[in-house]
């Protein structure tokens, strides 16, 4: 475990010395700035607009960071052959994969913190009380974090055997499909007994389901923050369990593929 943390720390250093991170961070903060301007136009709804836009921006750019950096994490080590200096040391391949993953997750965590601080700052500048909705926004950001855990695990899994561009395409495709799991189940209902119907049901359960993080029943974690509803604890707990379990599964798969690889 110590070695995992050492690799994670160095990966974190790699990330924070990467320009792409600052570009994406800058965009998010810019959008939060724009939301302040928009909020002022729509009197009475400032808070709602700021929270809504900020959370969407945080979610989108967090996902972009996870995909862009995540798909390059392992590939870069193979491409530049820096992996030789790791695998020849007393380091297990699984420790390498986990270290890389935790490194990027800590980068994402710091980023989420900075972006949320930006959103709170925007609210505070408008003279709105931050206290009442603080927890709701925090719950929504946590849901985004769970989502990013999954996206990063997907990106990392693909990058153990494919190029960054392909991995990014695959990851993005899964991310899009993953937002339509509910629709897929509905489609299965319509198709009913047909073979395609069964396939739809199977896929909707097997593929990552991102609506688990945003919607549960009639509750939307992101939207509830904007409407100042307290999220239900069970929703959060189920989302947590789903995020951790599915990510663990993907990382196991990533390690399994990586174990088989020759480093040429």
């Amino acid at each position, binding site marked *: 475990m*110590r*070695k995992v943390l*050492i*690799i994670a720390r*160095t990966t974190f*250093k*790699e990330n924070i*010395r*990467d320009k792409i991170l600052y570009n994406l961070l800058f965009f998010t903060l810019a959008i939060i700035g724009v939301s302040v301007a928009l909020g002022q136009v729509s009197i009475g709804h400032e808070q709602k607009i700021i929270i809504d836009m900020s959370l969407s921006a945080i979610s989108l750019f967090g996902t972009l960071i996870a995909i862009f950096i995540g798909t390059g994490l392992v590939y870069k080590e193979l491409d*530049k*052959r*820096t*992996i*030789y*200096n*790791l*695998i*020849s*040391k*007393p*380091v*297990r391949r699984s420790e390498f994969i986990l270290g890389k993953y935790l490194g990027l997750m800590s980068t994402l965590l710091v980023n989420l913190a900075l972006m949320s601080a930006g959103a709170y700052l925007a609210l505070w500048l408008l003279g709105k009380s931050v206290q009442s909705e603080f927890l709701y926004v925090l719950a929504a950001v946590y849901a985004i974090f769970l989502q990013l855990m999954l996206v990063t695990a997907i990106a990392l899994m693909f990058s153990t055997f494919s190029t960054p561009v392909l991995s990014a395409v695959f990851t993005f495709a899964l991310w899009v499909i993953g937002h339509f799991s509910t629709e897929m189940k509905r489609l299965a209902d319509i198709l009913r007994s047909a073979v395609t119907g069964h396939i739809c049901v199977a896929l909707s359960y097997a593929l990552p389901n991102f609506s688990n993080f945003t919607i549960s029943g009639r509750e939307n974690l992101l939207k509830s923050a904007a409407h100042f509803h307290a999220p239900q604890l069970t929703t959060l707990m189920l989302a947590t369990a789903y995020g951790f379990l599915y990510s663990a599964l993907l990382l196991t798969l990533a390690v399994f593929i990586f174990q088989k690889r*020759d*480093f*040429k």
Partner: protein
Amino acid sequence: MNVVEITHLTKDYRTGFWFHKRRRALEDLSLTVQAGEIFGFLGPNGAGKTTTLKILMGLIRPTAGKARILGCPIDHVQMHQEIGFLPENPYFYEYLTGREYLIYTAELFGRGRAAAQSRAVELMEMVRLEESLKIPLRKFSKGMIQRIGIAQALINDPRIVFLDEPMSGLDPVGRREVRDIIMNLRARGVTVFFSSHILADVESLCDRVAILNRGRLLDIGRLTEILRMEVSALEVMAKDVQAVTLERLQQLGGQTHAIGDRLHITLPDDRSLLEVIMTVQEGGGKVISVNPVRESLEEFFLKRIDAQYVSSHQYAQAGSEISR
């Protein structure tokens, strides 16, 4: 004691779009390396040296055969605690400084933060990079990268070091320093296994060598055993030799040729050596040196590789005749 034991190692690389073609890079290699020796792994480009080292380091898996290091199979993680490795044309995280990289490496070997820090500086001094502690590796020259590579290979005080072409990319001073480092390691009882295609490096350093070509082991043993070290000729170097003297020297059986103001006289044996020296001196010339000429590793190497080429060529022809 055998610290490295390679038995019947074979590696086929799969190539082509569908990985359907196989290319044999290493064929049935067996050899052992003893504790405390400097072992030279010699061969032209493409001989399979890097492939062998990568298998030993657990980077690629052999198609057939086995290897043991310090008595452990190569996928034994804890065994790697005792060994060091410098890859061919190494590459390190560009975003770290040399010092940060070495600290990171030392920590991977289980040293605490403080111990890792002091060890990193120690190694930077050893490879003469003490003035570049804070420069990112992105800005390092090829020679500096090679030095960092050597430093990271030695950071854990290994019992065996594997170096893949350690002299490549270094200027004469750098080569000399690497040679000194290797000699120092031997003095401390460390086993060194290094590959090279440069014979001079191997000739002056190694206790034993293995010669590899096209994935096959051609020879292994002490240099004196592999090369017939007997004197095959004598070379006398002289200057200020008059034309009259030259004729006399040729009569004595010497082949002469002038290079600059020097005259090289090659004699088949030492029978007429004294007479040659006296002749030069009587004619007003000066003898600068007398050197025995031995078959060099280079000549031997080329001869061996040619022989293998010819025999495989004949074999291929024979094969095609049979198929017709």
